[in-house]
């Protein structure tokens, strides 16, 4: 083999190794079960979304947002909640935190339904706000417990 073609193959193999290792690392991390930290972070996200939603409702009721903003922002928060819910549902968890995972799934589902239920009726919104805040508190308690 000439020196040049030797270098070619060495470089090609090295590059392939790097690509494969990165792909493998990503796959492994996606497929591995949720650790306590992973779960806590998902719960923290959900807590933030719940509080975001509660504050959005409060500010909308106070006339500080437009209807378009309210609808679009609520839709976006819900998308994120659903994405977290999907992650929690579809991953396995380490046995010691399985109960916590199921509890988190439950809370996430309630959160998602609250966003589904958001209507333009003033009365309904006045009820949804506090419900979201309560969910936020519950998620916060879970989060603190898991630290």
């Amino acid at each position, binding site marked *: 083999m000439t020196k040049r073609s030797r270098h070619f193959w060495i470089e090609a193999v090295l590059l392939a190794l790097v690509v494969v290792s990165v792909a493998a690392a990503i796959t492994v991390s996606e497929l591995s079960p949720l650790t306590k*930290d*992973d779960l*806590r*972070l998902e719960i*923290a*996200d959900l*807590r*933030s979304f719940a*509080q*975001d939603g509660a*504050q*959005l409702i409060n*500010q909308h009721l106070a*006339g*500080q*947002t*437009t209807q*378009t*903003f309210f*609808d*679009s*922002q609520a839709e*976006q*928060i819900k998308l*994120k909640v659903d994405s977290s819910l999907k992650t929690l549902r579809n991953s396995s968890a380490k046995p010691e935190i399985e109960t916590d995972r199921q509890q988190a799934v439950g809370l996430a589902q309630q959160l998602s339904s609250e966003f589904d239920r958001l209507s333009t009726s003033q009365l309904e919104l006045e009820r949804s706000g506090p419900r979201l805040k309560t969910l*936020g508190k519950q998620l*916060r308690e879970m989060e603190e417990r898991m*630290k």
Partner: protein
Amino acid sequence: MKNILEVFLGILTAMGGFVEIGELVFTVNAGVKFGYKLLWMVVVGTVGIIVFGEMSGRIAAVSSQPVFYFIRQRAGYGAGLLTLIAANLASLLTCAAEIGGIAILLKLLFGGNYFLLAFLTLVFLLLVVWFLSFQAIERIFGLLGLLMLVFVAAAFWLGPDWTSMASGFIPSVPQLETTSDYFVYAYFAVALLSSIMLPYETYFYASGGIEDGWNPSAINQNRIIVIVGFSLGALLAVALMIIGALYFAPLLIEPQMPGTAAMAPAFLFGKWGLIIALLGMFFAFSGAAIENALTGAYNISQFFGWNWGKYRVPKDAPRFHLAWMIMFVLAALIIFTGVDPVEVVEYSIVFSIVILPLTYLPMLLAGRDTDYMGPYANGWLAGILGWAYFVLICIAALAAIPLLIITHGGKG
């Protein structure tokens, strides 16, 4: 008199263009998580971008040579090509994040389908860059980006405690609860540094200087614009951190969307505060998207020696123009995959700091080269600061990816 106007507009433009979606999200969240304790990093980052902005502007004014000329000359073809690919990838990701952010903002303002709005954003950006002159683009988006000052007003309104703020400006590692908190703190410090010193800013600034026809007489003008403009822009970053600390932290909200950030001015100033905030972000993000697409085109044209610049008749620089169009289209395609723009910008910020040493070293070497720069080479201050920052960004570059992994993307 004309010169004073030029400088004044330049300052306002630099200020209005200081914040883009990555900086917005990171500064607000830094405020939520750590209160005022990372204010010192805003200062460190701002001084850094002033040092390198001034240097790249001075090099462009003296030699009429943009950054990628001397990257290729000093690093050679192979290393230079690597830098080109890395820099353009970073700009592509940033551009994509801005486009996604703009689509979100349009949806918040007008409603509609996100992907359709992303497509309209693409068309809007293509038309703006094709039909408007460089100066018009700079001015329009820079000046209208000043609508972001509503966040500064909001920060004042929230009544921060100036004494506790003051202590935040002193570089220190605060007392935190757990070990992982320290890693998150370090991660945010690195991310803040990177988001303020993004590589595209110096590339764009230098190329822009050449577009504007700078020569050595423009050096003082460059200095004033960079020092005053970027410092005022940093005020905006400080304001966002204050808003994070005083408004979002007590509510237990970690803003992951531009709409959430706008809720602070909405709370304090009502619907008008909301709309001004959304529009301000629209122009700031648009400006950043345009700068990144043009930077990609500048970089590749300057590296391969093609005709470049909006100052040329378009048909005389066909490859340059196709290049920025392709940047926009690829960026939009990234957004069409449905990926979250805020996640994209997080990766682009981490990637940017990793490649920042590659960018700054050739600039430092060119800046101090008296063959090149004659009497305008780096003085002692630019020299010392330049090297000090180079060491700092090397450390940050090495720490960035490990920190990203350890902290699960800055969450803990």
